[in-house]
């Protein structure tokens, strides 16, 4: 119940290319997770699966114990047991366990041919557990490498658009909140500027508070400082560090190892689409076990 995000056996294919190869990860409320790994290892893809900017090919994502991805019947033994295929395997003298394994390992379920009971059990599960992704997204902030501020809106409009459109706040409250946050990051004087008039560091800090205006439970950061000139990295990292003192759950993909060591409650090393190692910063940075992680660390530190 204390898990805010559960990633269950997520696989992601781009065409034939398997980029995530079965990721399992549970994240507790308030945790600061830093994800590291070489370029192309699947860090962004994993992060983007969490708010479904990418659709997991199989596996499931839960947010506050609610299913926010599509249902993957292979993750539910009780649903499989309602299927005709399962009944057929049992009648062929298979044991229950064998039948389950056979179905899971060979992906034997046929979505439309498993009978009414199977369909109803899926329906019931979704009824009890499904949360619409757009609702979840309003509680899961995302910060992008390239900021993605809305180019046609002023800074203030960028901050208030979503809360007002989604009727989470009225215009005045949203403006008040946005103004407070702008003041906090020292950019109140930019409120009527368009994004093209800002530096990268300013854009990224505004992108961060744009998410904060939604009062998110979780924030995802995908290499938030990678597109910045070196002299602007500091201002963004210090704002992020400030956020870590709140109860906000943060999942951060970054190559800033010193920052990771400082703020992470857990560091996760991904390689080849799989979580190869996870632990406290001390465990991962000072006592890496995986040889590829050792190699990776020797290159980036």
């Amino acid at each position: 119940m204390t898990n805010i995000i559960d990633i269950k056996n997520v696989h992601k294919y781009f065409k034939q290319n398997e980029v995530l190869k079965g990721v399992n990860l549970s994240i507790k409320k308030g945790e600061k997770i830093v994800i590291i790994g070489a370029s192309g290892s699947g860090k962004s893809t994993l992060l983007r699966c969490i708010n479904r900017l990418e659709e997991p090919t199989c596996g499931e994502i839960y947010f506050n114990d609610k299913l926010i991805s599509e249902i993957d019947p292979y993750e539910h033994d009780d649903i499989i047991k309602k299927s005709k295929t399962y009944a057929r395997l049992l009648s062929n003298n298979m044991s229950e366990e064998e039948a389950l394994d056979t179905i899971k390992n060979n992906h034997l379920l046929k979505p439309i041919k498993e009978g009414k009971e199977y369909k109803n059990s899926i329906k019931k599960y979704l009824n009890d557990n499904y949360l619409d992704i757009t609702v979840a997204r309003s509680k899961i902030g995302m910060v992008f490498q390239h900021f993605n501020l809305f180019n046609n809106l002023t800074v203030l409009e960028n901050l208030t658009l979503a809360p007002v459109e989604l009727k989470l706040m009225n215009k005045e409250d949203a403006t008040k909140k946005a103004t407070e946050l702008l003041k906090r990051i020292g950019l109140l004087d930019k409120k009527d500027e368009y994004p093209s008039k800002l530096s990268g560091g300013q854009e990224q800090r505004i992108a961060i508070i744009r998410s904060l205006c939604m009062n998110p439970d979780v924030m995802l950061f995908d290499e938030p400082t990678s597109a910045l000139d070196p002299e602007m990295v500091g201002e963004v990292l210090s704002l992020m560090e400030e956020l870590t003192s709140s109860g906000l759950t943060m999942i951060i993909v970054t190559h800033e190892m010193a920052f990771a060591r400082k703020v992470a409650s857990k560091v996760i090393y991904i390689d080849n689409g799989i979580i190869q190692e996870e632990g406290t910063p001390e465990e991962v940075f000072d006592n890496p076990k995986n040889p590829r992680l050792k190699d990776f660390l020797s290159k980036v530190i």
Partner: protein
Amino acid sequence: MKFFQDLVEIITTAEYRNYILEGFLNTLGITFIAVVIGLVLGFLVAIIKVFARANKALAIPNTICNIYTTVFRGTPVALQLFIFVFALFAIPGFKVYAVILCFGVNSGAYVSESIRAGIMSVDGGQMEAGISLGLSEIKTMKKIILPQAIKNVIPAIGNEVIALLKETAIISMVGSTVGTLTFDLNQASSTISYAISDFFAPSIIAALFYLVVVYLFTFLIKIFEKELHKSDKHN
């Protein structure tokens, strides 16, 4: 000198002046309504095509749209005009509507491609940022993508309107007689030409009318574009 005599004759003869005026107004009217049809249709088709990329439910509408744009951009307008007037809508008294519909539907095919290209030219990160905040794709499209796309699309739409205005000159191919709504500027000029047995002066007059409209319209588009770029202050 015959040319100037002809000019004077056309200008001083009420009947000829009325031909020109009638033709000019019909040309403008037909173009205008066809443009409106083209914009509405083009916009709808573009939106369907854009959303169909991520939405399997739109596969069939998308296919229909693709067939539509391919067919109408891949065949001559003159041929489409014959088909509309003499086959699809060969209904007495319906000719001018068939003509307008034909130009509108033809224009929609081109407009849809311009709008689609305009939407695609907006950075994909804009849509991702919108939906990541919990906004729907449609809302993000409306509030973020389209306002940015429109700037890229206006010049292309302007060109399409100009092309359409000039294309209406082929109306006479399906027959246009004085006093009907299909009597366009080009037909006015050729009617006068036959009456005075010379094509030069009437054609020049018609050409001037086309030119002036195109010029004014180009000018308006330029102002409009400037306004759009001014209002968002960037670039």
